[in-house]
């Protein structure tokens, strides 16, 4: 039996945690109230917390000031394509590394491990030049192809597939199942928690990504949301903070909503994807 913590200590611990949680959350609240203020209200000091009367028009104004519809489409196309490609390719390669015997398998797996430690910051100059030579800069392909397969995904799926009992695979093979059937009807359902964790991790990463589109996109036709919202400030003429924060709400709040619903899963996915 563990002795109960002294009530005073527990209250103190709770107080500290609450203070930190408030420090973490209040800025988002401030972002939202700022997005509903008028220009005179964002240019008073000291600032007020709540808008006098909420200016919902700010959202209309910011949406009209930049091609937000196109930003959203780009973000969706790129993120969905990357997550889909990475998931399928990771399952295929993960199965081969976990379950098949072929010459050079271990050497190829070392290549995967090596790719795990080569970050985008090391590759971008050369890939920029490469995409330029094949005329692919400023396309969806330039944003998708360099991320089409994930070393982390392969690594995680291999681990998960190693844990599946061989009898299940043998039984399916006796029934005449093809390799693809074995992978997607037997292995993947059993490894679903790993796959879902990886997909969540990858989706959040690429939805938020700023660095890569900054390098390979040149204009608004294929520019994704984070880049577009960041540009609100660069083109900005000083203190239009009510509009910039309205744009920022469009960027941040969808993710906060998703997080609120899938909080446990997402935390697990991030811990899992990094600890393995």
């Amino acid at each position, binding site marked *: 039996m563990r002795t109960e913590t002294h009530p005073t200590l527990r209250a103190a611990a709770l107080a500290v945690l609450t203070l930190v949680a408030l420090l973490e959350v209040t800025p988002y609240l401030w972002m939202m109230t700022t997005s509903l203020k008028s220009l005179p209200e964002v240019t008073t000091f000291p600032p007020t917390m709540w808008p006098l009367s909420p200016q919902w028009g700010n959202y209309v104004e910011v949406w009209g000031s930049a091609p937000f519809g196109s930003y959203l489409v780009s973000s969706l196309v790129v993120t969905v394509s990357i997550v889909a490609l990475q998931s399928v390719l990771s399952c295929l390669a993960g199965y081969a590394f976990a379950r098949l015997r072929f010459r050079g398998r271990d050497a190829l797996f070392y290549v995967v491990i090596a790719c795990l430690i080569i970050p985008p910051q090391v*590759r971008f*100059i*050369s890939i920029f030049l490469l995409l330029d030579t094949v005329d692919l800069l400023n396309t969806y392909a330039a944003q998708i*192809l360099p991320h089409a397969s994930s070393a982390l995904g392969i690594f995680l799926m291999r681990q998960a597939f190693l844990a599946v009992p061989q009898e299940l695979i043998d039984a399916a093979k006796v029934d005449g199942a093809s390799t693809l059937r074995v992978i997607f009807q037997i292995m993947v359902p059993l490894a679903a928690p790993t796959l879902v964790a990886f997909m969540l991790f990858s989706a959040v990463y690429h939805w938020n990504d700023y660095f890569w589109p900054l390098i390979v996109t040149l204009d608004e036709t294929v520019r994704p949301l984070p880049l577009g919202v*960041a540009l609100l*400030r660069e083109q900005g003429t000083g203190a239009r*903070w009510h509009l910039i924060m309205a744009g920022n709400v469009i960027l941040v709040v969808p993710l906060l909503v998703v997080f609120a619903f899938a909080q446990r899963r997402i*935390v697990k996915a991030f811990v899992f994807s990094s600890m393995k």
Partner: protein
Amino acid sequence: MGTQRRGGGARWREALTGYGLVLPSMAVFAVFYLYPVAHTLYLSFFNWNLTGDPKPVGLGNYEALLSDEVFGEVLVNTLTYSLATVAVTMVGGLGLALLLNRPGRVYGVLQACIFTSYIVSWVGVSLLWIWMLDAQFGPVNGVLSAFGVSPVDWLGDPDLALWSLVGVTSWKTVGYDMVLFLAGLQSIPVDTLEAAEMDGASRWQRFWSITFPQLMPTTLFVLITSVIMTFQGFDVVRVMTQGGPVRATTIYVYFIYEQAFGYFKVGYAAAAVVLFFVVLLGVTLVQFRLFDRQRREEAP
């Protein structure tokens, strides 16, 4: 099933299937991982501004880098930013994890609140904090003014700007260290702690003699991933300060980006990338070694 003698045909088919399944991924890695590393190394031996022919300069770029005053400043900035952030997030993350490590809905909600910022994009966090830290109208100075503190130019003062970025980065990432430490804490067997308590060990003694040593692998892991993450810092600088004022917040990756895309000094930037990669590789190898040794010690 007993041992099955498989014919050469079956073995061939298995091998072919294997190659077929890994081929698409390997093609991606060859083109977008391995070739770029080799090509960047190659580029680092040339002077090239994107037009005309690259001019071979041997190790010239590396010599120039190491005698470049700006590069020296960048190294100091990067180390300051990295080490300060890692210190804050690790101490903070461990402290929060220790406080949070008990059952109850309240703790779950608090954990979620503190972790949230980790999954919000850097752009979102950076824009939010440019506003929060605005010298003229920002809420942070607004709150401080209530205590009689005169306005502080958080991002415009060269002596302060980098520390403001340390603050923002820590604010965003402390929740990540926290959940990793929490996972580590929860993997410590409860009976060890209970036994120590029965023997009359105080809370303090239990922490230093049981929790802390058992948490060592987690601590090492968090340390190395945090160092790597902060070395790769870029977005926060690009959005919040563009490396300024007067280079005060130019950290490594921003420097590379500026050399390549601002000044078109491709070879020079490539040399900086190579040095960066060597350091990263070193850190990662240390990580592999430490964890390998640990795994061997754990194995019977």
